[in-house]
């Protein structure tokens, strides 16, 4: 038995920074002599239950001056811990818990602390290699090889901790072997045996053994509480994570769970008391923490250099080349370089060279050059469009000098963080080609994508916690369905405000308040929200380093083949000053590239950079809101605004793109702008000094640049403060930054005696941008693409729609809606045919398209290619010939026959004829049968003269099959068929209707069609029916819902108020076709919207499942 106050053992002396060995007696150990060196955060996925910031904040509260976060297999949380520690005046030591896989034995879990920059580099290398699976030991290897990578690694600069959790199960013999092996690898002074005390009865036995081991091997002891969470009550979440990690539930987990709540971050005083019988272990934690001299302040990251002929260039050479390329490009862009342009270029170049960014610009230029050389369309966006140098280098497409854009928004000496350049590429394979080019150019391990930390959002949080508490999956499904249509906050800060709504949803999901697990579910749900779930990859952010990126940050393979990611997200990288390039994918660019290619193939060479930006026909299209399929201006809200906005010049389009955004909408800026533009409201500049800044947007701050300039003018913000404001506006992690900067802004304005009313309006403008508003340059870049897409739709509609169809899914509308829109533009759509179709949709002439084989769901690419290749050799003679040469499998054969793709074969009469004939040849006999019949005419039926037993499909059959196999039909619109069938049903039951008078609101003849909306007067009661193509309930709409119904004549817009939505929620969210009753509202610009009062499903079911764009 362990007695209350054991007598300490004999003494030995502390020598400098070297650890104190066992059996030490210290005469006067100061109180609170302890540093926690083995904490794990939420970034030890499914292990730690507190954010790094929480751990650091708690450590500061408890009086620590240093803390080490050793997350599992990574440095994921180190940046956040580092900056949180700086904020609290602590040192956040760096390290990780590396896990070495064993062959046939449990893995070795080894916490590693970084002592110096070399150790950091070695740890990054080691983690990168472990993530890449380089430590897999071979069979029959010795323990030494068993514990560590087969290939030796450099352990210098690292300190290893052998903890009771390093080996599981803990085995005396194995422990001795492992400790010996670790001592030999890391050195006697770089290995510590760690004691923990979590008030478990079994701990003392283990600790006694560990102490004996330390004595035996002369390895120093270290005390730690190995915390997994900051506070005692966080244990609940830790238990839940344990269940998720082991794929079990709390009821089943048993001894996998913590037996008490002692694994929280304890104060140095508590640990000193706990380990007063092992003072040397306490003292060692302090000595070791002082010895560890590395924090992320010493991160050795350098901007990449531009390489020429495989050799890095000096900064001077980089500057010289950048200047040459800039002026060369400038001459191409501007023809003649005016003084104003020259001055701007010189100003920018001077700053770029002074800040050492020349190499970075050249690297981006090289990427753009590569894309161009491969014929890949690309365009820079974001703040890079403010730079004339970027424009001259061909990185961006809008002229910042001509547009009066502020270069300092992109780059300035006062900025504390470095800018990144975003480039849009056509999404899909073409962007992947560029990404792979970058990976190859900087291989091995010189480039990687930034990570994207996937956090628990309400639905995933609820689903996972349901698993933990053993609720049925249906409960989570119901919650997800209900959550989608209800407005509940997603952030932990505000979620409590919605407690009642949440409890209501829980109750409706099948977890009533009196359920024994109700409280636990509610607690865990709230607790886990915003916790990191796993690491994904950023949509396009790439980091490049010519000195080996794996020396800067550990890399790990991404889920996608041939990609690696760093362990930090883009915000972490930005915080550390790591420059990234965003290679983003834009579906519209891919569609436009396809359209241009088809134009070229048809002899029309179009250069998008030379299209006229004053084309009246294009602006007419915009004014008429005929923008389905175009870029950025195709949404319902955009289409509702365009007739009011009536854009006639390019800058109108820039404003249009920026106006319909969450920022301006919530900031209530849309109506003031439109009113002022249409002369219904006087222009107000908020403050006289803002006239120059807000002149172009009629006194309404629409762009980030304007907000920044306003802050500089009215509050005297300098460049650095303006940059802080910019970051706060773009920072989505927390609104803490926003509150802080708003306060600063308000205080500065007060100091300058600015009127309170003006102060409020300025602060409101800033706050609305926190919900995301565009920088002007970004809006211009997007408006360029939007204009080009509209121009293509006006002047080359066939090629435009072909490009769109070939790059689905993308945009706002399903294929069916695009096809109906194409038809409204007098383009005929030919169905898929094995006789004529290519893999992609092709243009037959200016007014006709042939749909491609790729639109058929479940037709393999290889079969589609075989069809096209076989046909290129010689056209198919008949069905037999087709089956022989293409050899589609049974499902594909049925698919092709059912959608009518075989109808053009000369012995096929109709779809069912092809189905009947094509069904007869069994797969295994196909080849032999084909050989036998090669010289004989094919007869699908046993008796060619017998009549075909199957009748042709009717419209309804064709529609159902087309929608199930392609999500669209080239035949009549479903509503046209439905209307006809509905009428037929009514007439067949005429006898009944004679007794019951027909309700006009429910009679197909009286329903108003979409094309008739224009002739309905304001306030008139009408009913309409249609296929739902869009249901939207944006967070900015106070719970109201917007529905777009499509019929054979066009699209009708519906407004459903919150109360009506709540009443008909199930009907709205589950039915494909709706019958709506309400009164017409004619809005500004003549937009006709049905204010819906009653909604019901149609009394006739076509049995088709249509695709709609819902709640996005």
């Amino acid at each position, binding site marked *: 038995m362990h007695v209350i106050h054991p007598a300490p053992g004999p003494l030995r002396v502390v020598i400098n920074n070297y650890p104190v060995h066992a059996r030490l007696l210290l005469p006067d150990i100061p109180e609170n002599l302890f540093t926690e060196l083995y904490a794990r955060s939420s970034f030890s996925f499914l292990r730690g239950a507190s954010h790094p910031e929480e751990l650091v904040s708690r450590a500061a509260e408890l009086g620590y001056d240093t803390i080490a976060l050793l997350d599992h297999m990574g440095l994921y949380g180190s940046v956040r811990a580092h900056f949180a520690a700086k904020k609290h005046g602590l040192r956040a030591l760096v390290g990780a818990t590396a896990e070495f896989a064993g062959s046939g034995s449990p893995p070795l879990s080894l916490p590693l602390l970084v002592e110096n920059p070399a150790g950091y580099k070695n740890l990054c290398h080691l983690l990168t290699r472990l993530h890449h699976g380089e430590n897999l030991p071979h069979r029959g290897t010795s323990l030494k090889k068993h514990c560590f990578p087969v290939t030796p690694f450099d352990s210098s600069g690292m300190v290893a901790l052998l903890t009771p959790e390093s080996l599981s199960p803990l085995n005396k013999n194995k422990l001795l072997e492992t400790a010996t092996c670790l001592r030999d690898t890391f050195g006697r002074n770089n290995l510590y045996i760690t004691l923990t005390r979590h008030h478990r009865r079994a701990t003392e*036995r283990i600790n006694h053994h560990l102490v004996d081991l330390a004595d035996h091997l002369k390895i120093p002891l270290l005390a730690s509480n190995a915390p997994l969470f900051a506070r005692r009550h966080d244990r609940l979440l830790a238990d839940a994570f344990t269940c998720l990690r082991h794929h079990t539930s709390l009821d089943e987990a048993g001894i996998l769970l913590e*037996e008490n709540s002692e694994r929280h971050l304890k104060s140095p005083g508590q640990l000193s008391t706990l380990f007063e019988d092992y003072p040397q272990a306490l003292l060692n934690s302090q000595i070791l923490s002082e010895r560890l001299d590395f924090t992320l302040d010493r991160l050795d990251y350098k901007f990449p250099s531009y390489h020429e002929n495989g050799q890095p260039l000096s900064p001077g050479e980089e500057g010289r080349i950048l200047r040459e390329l800039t002026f060369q490009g400038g001459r191409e862009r501007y023809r003649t370089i005016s003084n104003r342009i020259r001055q701007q270029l010189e100003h920018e170049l001077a700053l770029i060279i002074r800040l050492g960014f020349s190499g970075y610009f050249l690297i981006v230029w090289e990427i753009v050059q590569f894309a161009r050389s491969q014929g890949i369309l690309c365009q820079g966006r974001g703040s890079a469009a403010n730079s004339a140098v970027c424009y001259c280098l061909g990185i961006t497409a809008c002229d910042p000098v001509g547009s009066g854009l502020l270069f300092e928004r992109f780059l300035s000496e006062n900025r504390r963080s470095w800018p990144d350049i975003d480039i849009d590429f056509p999404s899909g394979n073409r962007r992947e080609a560029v990404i792979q080019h970058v990976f190859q150019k900087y291989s091995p391990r010189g480039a990687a994508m930034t990570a994207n930390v996937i956090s628990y959002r309400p639905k995933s949080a609820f689903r996972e916690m349901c698993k933990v508490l053993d609720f049925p999956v249906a409960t989570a499904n119901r919650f997800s369905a209900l959550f989608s249509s209800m407005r509940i906050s997603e952030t932990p800060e505000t979620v409590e405000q919605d407690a009642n709504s949440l409890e209501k949803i829980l109750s409706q999901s099948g977890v009533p308040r009196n359920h024994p697990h109700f409280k636990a579910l509610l607690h865990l749900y709230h607790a886990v929200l915003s916790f990191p779930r796993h690491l994904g990859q950023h949509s396009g952010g790439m980091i490049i380093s010519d000195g080996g990126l794996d020396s800067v940050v550990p890399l790990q393979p991404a889920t996608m083949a041939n990609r690696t990611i760093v362990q930090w997200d883009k915000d972490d990288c930005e915080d550390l000053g790591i420059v990234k390039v965003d290679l983003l994918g834009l579906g519209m660019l891919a569609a436009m590239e396809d359209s241009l290619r088809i134009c070229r193939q048809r002899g029309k060479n179009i250069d998008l950079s030379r299209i006229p930006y004053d084309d009246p026909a294009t602006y007419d299209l915009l004014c008429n809101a005929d923008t389905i399929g175009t870029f950025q201006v195709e949404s319902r809200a955009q289409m509702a605004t365009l007739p009011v906005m009536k854009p006639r010049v390019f800058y109108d389009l820039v404003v249009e793109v920026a106006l319909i955004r969450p920022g301006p909408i919530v900031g209530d800026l849309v109506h003031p702008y439109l009113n002022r533009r249409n002369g219904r409201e006087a222009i107000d500049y908020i403050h006289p000094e803002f006239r120059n800044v807000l002149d172009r947007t009629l006194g309404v701050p629409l762009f980030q640049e304007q907000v920044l300039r306003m802050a500089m003018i009215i509050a005297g913000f300098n460049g650095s403060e303006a940059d802080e404001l910019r970051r706060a506006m773009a920072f989505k992690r927390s609104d803490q930054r926003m509150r802080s900067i708003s306060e600063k802004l308000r205080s500065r304005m007060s100091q300058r005696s600015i009127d309170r009313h003006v102060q409020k309006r300025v602060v409101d403008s800033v706050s609305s941008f926190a919900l995301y508003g565009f920088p002007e340059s970004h809006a211009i870049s997007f408006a360029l693409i939007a204009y080009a897409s509209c121009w293509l739709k006006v002047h080359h509609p066939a090629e435009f729609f072909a490009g769109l169809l070939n790059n689905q899914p993308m945009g706002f509308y399903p294929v069916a809606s695009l096809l109906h829109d194409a038809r409204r533009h007098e383009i005929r759509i030919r169905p898929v045919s094995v006789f004529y179709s290519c893999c992609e949709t092709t243009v037959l002439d200016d007014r006709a398209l042939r749909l491609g084989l790729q639109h058929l769901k479940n037709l393999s690419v290889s079969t589609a290619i075989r069809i096209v290749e076989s046909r290129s050799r010689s056209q198919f003679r008949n069905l037999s010939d087709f089956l022989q040469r293409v050899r589609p499998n049974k499902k594909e054969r049925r698919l092709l026959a059912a959608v009518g793709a075989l109808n053009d074969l000369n012995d096929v009469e109709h779809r069912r004829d092809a189905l009947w004939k094509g069904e007869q040849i069994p797969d295994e006999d196909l080849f032999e049968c084909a050989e036998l019949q090669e010289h004989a005419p094919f007869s699908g039926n046993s008796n060619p003269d017998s009549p075909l037993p199957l009748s042709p499909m009717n419209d309804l059959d064709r529609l159902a099959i087309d929608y199930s196999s392609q999500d669209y039909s080239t035949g009549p619109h479903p509503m046209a068929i439905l209307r006809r069938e509905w009428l037929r049903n009514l007439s067949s039951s005429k006898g009944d209707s004679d007794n019951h008078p027909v309700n006009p609101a429910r009679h197909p003849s009286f329903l108003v069609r979409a094309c008739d909306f224009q002739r309905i007067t304001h306030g008139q009661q009408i009913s309409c029916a249609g296929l739902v193509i869009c249901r939207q309930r944006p967070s900015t709409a106070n719970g109201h819902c917007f529905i777009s119904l499509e019929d054979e004549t066009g699209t009708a817009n519906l407004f459903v108020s919150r109360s009506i939505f709540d009443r008909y929620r199930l009907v709205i969210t589950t039915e494909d076709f709706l019958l709506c009753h309400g009164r017409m509202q004619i809005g500004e610009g003549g937009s006709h919207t049905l204010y819906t009062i009653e909604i019901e499903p149609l009394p006739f079911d076509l049995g088709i499942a249509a695709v709609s764009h819902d709640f996005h």
Partner: protein
Amino acid sequence: MYASFQVPFFPLAVLLRDTLPEDSDPTALVNPAANPSSGKESSHSIPVILAANHAASQHQIIPGLTATRALSRCPQLALLTPDPDAERRHQDDLRQYVSSLGPDFEETAPGIFILDLLALPRSPGFPLDWIEQALRRAAPLRLPLHLALAPTPDLSLLAGGSSVLRYTLSFNPEPLFRITSQPTFHLQHIASRSIASLCSDSYSLKLDRDVLSLWGIKTLGDLAALPRQGLAERLGSEAGRAHDILHGKQHRLLSLYRPPEKFSLYQDLEYPLENLEALLFSLNRGLGTLCSRLKSLHRATSSIKISLTFDDGNQYQHRLSLPEPSCHPSSLLEILQVHLETVHASAPIIRWSLHLTPVLPGETQHNIFGYSPRDSHSLPNTIAQLTALLGPDRLGVPLPLASHYPDSFRMKKPLLPGRNPKPSRETDADPTGSFSPGDPGTALPLSRYRPPLPVHVACNAGTRHPSPLALLNGPCPGPIVALNGPFPLSGNWWSSDKSWQRVEWDIQLADKTLLRLACHSPGSWTLEGSYQ
């Protein structure tokens, strides 16, 4: 000639048995969300409408619709889930009813029977008189019933779905009979029925309905009109068989229902028995008979149910579960004897009855190194004796639970050697020196007090966990001279009705006694055990 008896939408009809069709609200049956075998919900189970009543079908509630969508179409729709127990009961009633009409019938599916009319006597009014009589006899069941005649069993089922061919019994609320002379069965009468009616469980046909749907084959008439050879060439022999069924060319044999054998015996005694010996003598004869029956069918029994009726009108019933199936009369009698010795009768016995539960005999092949009892028949007897001594549910194998809750275990029913699970190795001492998660933390064995002994403890309440200073009462009161702890333990925090927490201490008293002490809440202490 065959007669089919079908209760339309049997599971729903059972639930709506006492509801008037006209007055009933829209009601639909949805698939059960829970998997009865596991008690857990199937991960992919989405509630789907299985059947709907007339009121619901007026709102386009059709089978296959998801429950959510059905509710959107008819918010007042009542959703019911099947009641298997009620279905079983009514199925038994139906079986009894059909068996009263004729001996040779098939229990095709729940609520569906086919009766072979060949063996029935034909009166001049046959079949109408017989049909009327049959339907009238079904009225007490209060379930709607369709009766149809056809030349083959399968066609009789299909005929039951045809409003032209069937005779019906419905309720409103009084029984309504539709018994008029119907035309002789012809394919055209069932031609408009959906192809789905041929794909139900009753036919065990696997038709490729997707292909048939693509072909536009929606009704039985469409299918029957296809050329048989062409159909079989394309969709295989099953499609050919379906074609044959429709044309009456497939005449299968009924799977005749036969009642299960019962292993019950009773005896009304000529004179009351007053002692056990006489009763055992009588029971021995009964067991001998029942065991002979079991043996003749290669069965054994897993339990014995004994009922005794006393002279004063009281009754005594008891079921004895056997650890291993047996059909040895002597063993069974010994077990009965052990049990009956514990029974005190209030009056002489005038009647006894025995019921044995038939099961397959246990077949355990003992391997050469395996442990087996010397006399496998004596163990059940021993277990019976222990059960009689200790009481029911107090004998078994304690299995420790994987839980931090101290001394948690569950009892597993006693089984014969070879069937007991291997004891958990978690708490076994590992010669290699492993520290397992369930490590007791001390090498000293703990003798647990069951139940723990409540004690009063003087403690120092200044700390988070009150530190004990002395035991004030209990078996060994006195000051605590040394202690180890605290060891806080808690669990089931997620369950409001099962959460627990405690703090344990290992204490040493002045007389060197080592005890385990637990504090459950302030002032509530128990002695958990003593270290040996």
